[in-house]
């Protein structure tokens, strides 16, 4: 009876990804699990204008494998390195009653709770969740390469990649003529060398392109006075995200500004923007005024396309309503598009005040109010909002 050796065969190895089908199914289950929790995840994750390749750790449930196992009160046995004493701390307790993963026996190991998912996939799942039509999904995912520069003449300084050979050669010729080193007229004479000099080098000069067609700023305004529960955060964040994605596909250079307000407004980061702020009263006008100030200071409408959107739960001090209306009107003047979205998860609209009635009186063809009660409203509201874009007629 001899032993059989089967040598390694490259072809088999390349053909034999036997786990492929099961890995795919596992991946689908993870995705399903993420989809069930997408609102929680998006509510806590900064996604606006972030790198699509970024990998996020997402906590997931529902793909653990369950069995009857012993619980936390089960002690275990392990080996020490020679003189272990009672009372010594030997490790950290796991959340699952398992002890160290490498102990003898066959207890199931600790299941992982987090999975890596790229921002891109997360956004894809969010689009699915918001029931975006496929075509729109595709469009919103295209990122044109931003070209922020245009050529403007030639300089004697620059970087090597922008060296312009033609202008450089001409500069050398000019210099040669100027120094009377013409080519020799005697046949057989070796013409003396006339090498390039640093002064001959000519570089293409680039300047930042500041045309109006290519610049846009998205101003996100939200009141942080009320309670921002997960669903509200999710709705607001996904709306702002869609808006940003849309603007990015239209303009080359897009900036984004977050303004959080209660009774006073301040500019914040995305992370702060989506975190529960202070409770208290609300002056909507403060947010609009802040937006106006920022636009006046950094984004002059002659150079920038301004898109502003305000998410709120509709609470405002009555005394502030006239001011709110006035500032909203001013904001509509400087914006391509200005919108007000009232986020009222179902059932809350009957006993809370609303600004929707107040804003009816605002006469501006580029101003739009929407009411968002559930995630299915996001996409239609978004469409309705964009229909008012002033930039479309140009």
């Amino acid at each position, binding site marked *: *009876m001899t*032993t*059989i*050796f*089967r*040598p*390694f065969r490259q072809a088999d*190895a390349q053909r*034999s*990804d*036997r*786990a492929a*089908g*099961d*890995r*795919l*199914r*596992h*991946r689908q289950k993870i995705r399903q699990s993420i989809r069930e929790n997408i609102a929680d995840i998006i509510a806590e994750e900064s996604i606006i204008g972030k790198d699509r390749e970024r990998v996020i750790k997402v906590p997931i449930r529902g*793909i*653990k*494998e*369950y*069995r*009857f*196992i*012993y*619980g*936390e*009160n*089960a*002690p*275990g*046995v*392990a*080996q*020490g*390195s020679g*003189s*272990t*004493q*009672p*009372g*010594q*701390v*030997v*490790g*950290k*307790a796991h959340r*699952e*009653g398992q*002890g*160290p993963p*490498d*102990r*003898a*026996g*066959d*207890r199931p190991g600790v299941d*992982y709770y987090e999975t890596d998912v790229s921002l891109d996939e997360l956004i894809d799942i969010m689009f699915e969740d918001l029931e975006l039509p496929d075509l729109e999904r595709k469009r919103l995912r295209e990122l044109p390469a931003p070209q922020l520069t245009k050529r403007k003449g030639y300089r004697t300084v620059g970087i090597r990649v922008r060296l312009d050979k033609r202008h450089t050669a001409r500069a050398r010729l000019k210099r040669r003529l100027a120094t009377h080193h013409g080519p020799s007229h005697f046949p057989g004479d070796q013409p003396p060398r006339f090498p390039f000099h640093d002064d001959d080098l000519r570089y293409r000069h680039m300047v930042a392109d500041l045309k109006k067609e290519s610049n846009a700023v998205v101003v996100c305004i939200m009141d942080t006075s009320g309670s921002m529960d997960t669903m509200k955060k999710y709705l607001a964040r996904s709306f702002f995200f869609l808006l940003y994605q849309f603007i990015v596909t239209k303009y080359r250079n897009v900036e984004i500004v977050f303004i959080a307000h209660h009774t006073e407004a301040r500019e914040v980061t995305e992370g702060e923007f989506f975190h529960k702020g202070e409770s208290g009263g609300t002056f909507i006008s403060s947010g609009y005024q802040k937006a106006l100030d920022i636009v006046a200071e950094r984004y002059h409408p002659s150079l920038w396309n301004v898109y502003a959107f305000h998410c709120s739960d509709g609470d405002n001090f009555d005394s502030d309503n006239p001011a709110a209306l006035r500032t909203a009107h001013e904001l509509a003047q400087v914006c391509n598009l200005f919108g007000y979205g009232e986020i009222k998860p179902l059932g809350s609209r009957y006993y809370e005040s609303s600004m929707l009635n107040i804003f009816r009186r605002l006469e501006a063809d580029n101003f739009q109010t929407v009411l968002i009660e559930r995630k299915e409203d996001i996409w239609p509201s978004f469409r309705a909002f964009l229909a008012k874009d002033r930039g479309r007629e140009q």
Partner: protein
Amino acid sequence: MAAPYTVDDLMAWDERIREQAAAFGLDCFPQEFELCDHNQMLGYMAYSGMPSHYPHWSYGKAYEKLKTLYDYGVSGLPYEMVINSSPALAYLMRDNTLLLQILTIAHVYGHNDFFKNNATFRSTRPEFTISSFKAHAARVRRYIEDPSIGLERVEPIVDAAHALSLQCRRNLAIRKRTIEEVRNDLIEAGRPPADPFQQLHRRPKHVEPDLRKVPPEPDEDVLLFIRDHNPYLAEWERDLITIVHEEAQYFIPQIETKIMNEGWASYWHKQILDHLDLPEGLQLEFIVRHNQVVRPFPGGLNPYHLGFKVWEDIRRRYDDPTAEERAEIGDPGKNGLQKMFEVRESDRDVSFLRRHLTEPLLRELDLFEYEARGDDLVVSKVADSESWRDVKALLLQSVGMATVPVIKVDDADFSGNRTLYLVHAHDGRDLLLEHAEKTLAYLHRLWQREVALETLVGGKRTLLAYTDRGFSTKSLK
């Protein structure tokens, strides 16, 4: 990277290793080796080494997990992967050094001999292993491809069966009595014993056995019980349950003998390589690698190390006992090697450790008991003269199938509405409730009626139930 040796080199070494193994008295199945790359190895590991296996997402998950650990360098790949079949099948990683291949080949023969001769494996029918796994795979695939069944109906059944696959009888050497036999025994037990002085004694009462109860005595094979007693299951559902049950049965002996088996293989690879006259360069690498395999894990427990130490100690106690040991054992009439071969045939991890892990060895290994206090794991007992027995008892509770709670079907028609009533034989360790709840849901899925599990939670008798309305708990008197 091609290794600087050929398959012919390996075959030449294999020849010498086999001769050496036979000289030591190892008795093996025929052996096959397959050279593979690390991707194939990950694949084999995910499917427990089986060349063919039915599809299920959990194997995809296992693969991802192994690959993640491997890619991040947390764990290397094992040097060896060998399955209990005849011929025994083992995989060698082609990127390994020559010495590692020699070490692995020797190690594999240790496992091979153990599979063939250990009593626990008697029921595994190794000559059919590969073909039966292949047949299972084909059947499951057929159900998945069947348009009237499909993956979306197969998967929930397999998920549920996986959750319960280890809730079965542990000792397969003991024949399971048929329901008829159990009933006859009950009737027999109900009869009054024969009494020569019947005239003098008062007649004992005739106790009528309850023959209507199903099962007549508590049944540990949960999956099989459901398969045989739920009339609403389709034929393909029964088949899936059978397949999952049979595969679990096949792996139980390996769960039951992990420490012994790894210790045995490590012991013999050491013996064999010590007798091979390795060239100096290889000898040095061998010492390093061997110590990597059988080194202790402080704060954990390395089955290779524990098994290896116990085997060494058995041989020493019979060949070269101390005065006390001599007094204790007397003249055993056999040498260490004979004793080792006897133990390798008759024991499993629990008995192996109970009989041969002595107090001095327990102390030498510095085994201790730990428990969770707050967020820390704290040493609660060490192997000193007053609590080494407790440490040992706990160790016996955490090897092999002792890590799986004993849960038996007590009554399939509880309260007259086909509720499945199970009882957990509580041994001081509570069930993890989150898992118990989910597992009961799976049980409910297979039984299709209410299921209830009686257990102790914090010392109180508690009934965990799962109905169409979900999970509930209530205290019992």
